[in-house]
């Protein structure tokens, strides 16, 4: 078990109860997809896993240790083993692709060195390798914010890979991309999962993508975990339970 989510509750300071007693396991090497309507708590779940948010109660076991109470250096150490990519890519604007990818190594680069922009030769070589893996060879010195959406998301994947992550969290990684680009980005995630053996937890909106890429699915509804199973087991009934009575499935090609 890479991650064990145990009875996690999350109440935001404004009183929103975003997660209600959520428990599930994440197995080594799987491609787990979290589905659910907007506002069901998917982003909150991922942000609790890498401690961008604190859980209110419950435990999150990462490699057998509870990480919910870690502080300072220990917490950053755990974060560095969990990569994350975002819907809006969240690259540092005005900086080059190389600088953005190298920022994935910040946790193991000294503060002073990183301020001066000094990285080890090993990391630089690795950055170039990952840029090649995500198909952006030759774009190392381009400004990240001048790339297309799909390319930016691939830079974000390379940045996350620089952390040597055990787990990669992806929060609706293709929600602001067109269908063709969505598939391309999803295929890179699949490659990362299968060839580099990184466990992936991915929030998704489209069931067609879920069926194609995931190895297992959990569904959230209003902060509750309501489904856990294989992607092809989601039938009409489950679909309506997860998305509501009037929902109609649309596909993305």
């Amino acid at each position, binding site marked *: 078990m890479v991650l064990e989510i145990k009875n996690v509750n999350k109440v935001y300071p404004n009183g929103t109860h975003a997660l209600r007693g959520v428990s599930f396991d994440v197995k080594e090497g799987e491609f787990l997809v979290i589905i659910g309507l907007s506002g069901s708590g998917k982003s909150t779940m991922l942000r609790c896993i890498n401690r961008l948010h604190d859980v209110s109660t419950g435990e999150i076991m990462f490699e057998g240790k509870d990480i919910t109470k870690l502080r300072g250096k220990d917490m950053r150490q755990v974060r560095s083993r*969990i990569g994350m990519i975002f819907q809006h890519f969240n*690259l*540092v604007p005005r900086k080059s692709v190389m600088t953005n990818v190298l920022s994935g190594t910040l946790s193991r680069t000294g503060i002073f060195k990183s301020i001066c922009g000094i990285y080890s030769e090993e990391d630089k070589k690795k950055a170039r390798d990952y840029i090649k893996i995500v198909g952006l060879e030759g774009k190392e010195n381009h400004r990240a914010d001048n790339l297309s959406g799909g390319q930016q998301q691939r830079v974000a994947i390379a940045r996350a890979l620089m952390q040597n992550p055990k787990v990669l969290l992806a929060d609706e990684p293709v929600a602001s991309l067109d269908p063709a680009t969505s598939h391309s980005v999803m295929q890179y995630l699949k490659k990362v999962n299968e060839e580099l053996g990184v466990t992936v937890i991915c929030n998704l909106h489209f069931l067609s993508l879920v069926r194609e890429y995931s190895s297992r699915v959990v569904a959230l509804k209003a902060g509750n975990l309501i489904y856990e199973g294989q992607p092809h087991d989601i039938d009409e009934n489950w679909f309506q339970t997860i998305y509501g009575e009037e929902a109609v499935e649309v596909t993305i090609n």
Partner: protein
Amino acid sequence: MNTTTQQTTSDIPNPNDFLSVKVKRHFSALAIDIALWSYTVLVSWKVIYEKVIMNMRYPKFFWTQPLTAFVIGAVIALALYMTSLSCGRAFTKLMKRDENKPVLKEPFSFFIIAIVILTFISGIYISQVSLHEFLSDSGLTGARRIFTALFNPNFAILEQATFAAIETIYMAFIATAVALPMAFIIAFFAARNLMSESKVTLAVYNIVRFFLNVSRSIEPLVWAIIFSVWVGIGPFAGMLALCLHSVSSLSKLYSEQIENISDGPIEAITATGAHPIQVIWYGVVPQIVLPYLSFTIYRWDINVRMATVIGLVGGGGIGTMLMQYQGLAKWNEVGMLVIIIAAIVWLMDWLSSRIRESIK
């Protein structure tokens, strides 16, 4: 695939609120009407009647007069409140208008146009516009004399004037350079997104904002006069005045930049396990440094211009020199100075826009 689960909240407020909203609207409508009518009465009386019609040179002014105008205005406003002449009811949308009728054909529009015409006529009289003076023989001769002198600048003072100009540029530069670190720090306290965490920080934010607004709304020219009494006439007083004004302007611009920072990169860098200092360096600084630089260079450009004006009241540099020659009616020398000032302003403008363009 998405179904809307959002509940539509009812648009109709509860009856009590509704009543008070309506009363408030009538209140402001009446206030608008009274203000407009008082103004009309006062201007017609003091300017149109006394100056234009009676041709009085120095009409007497008592504080009871605006009061009388106010009372008369209020009476008229009340009397005409329910008619279609009421601008207040039109502005607050209390008046039921025929949507198909053009706004300009409504009686209240005529009233507004009348007020604008009244103000225009009064303006011409009050600023003593006189074509007669503008085109008089002696006036034109004087103008010709000055322009001839201005276009024949005295190059003998070129060296002296250049030094004065350099003094001005340096004064502006130092004012900007000293203002920069102060504004850099103050900006964090004046950024709403950083300060809305607790009541205490919000109070600090409001106090800082208040002082920034006050010091910014006092012209550097006025500050220069204050400082020249304080530290004596000269470049130092001018520098202080510019510096103060720059601190408040830059703080405002910087803090707005901080308020516009996007959280995305900060979140992403945090998620890599970076130290908070690294998060600031990689997530925050790239988002603010170029806009800051651009604002600061632009400020220097503005300060050079302002330094010239401040020199006129004794702030040193080329402005002071200009004032001295002007006082002696040495127009050839003034002509030289005007050329140099124009050249500097043009140069700074060009330089700062080039630099700002290249760092965008």
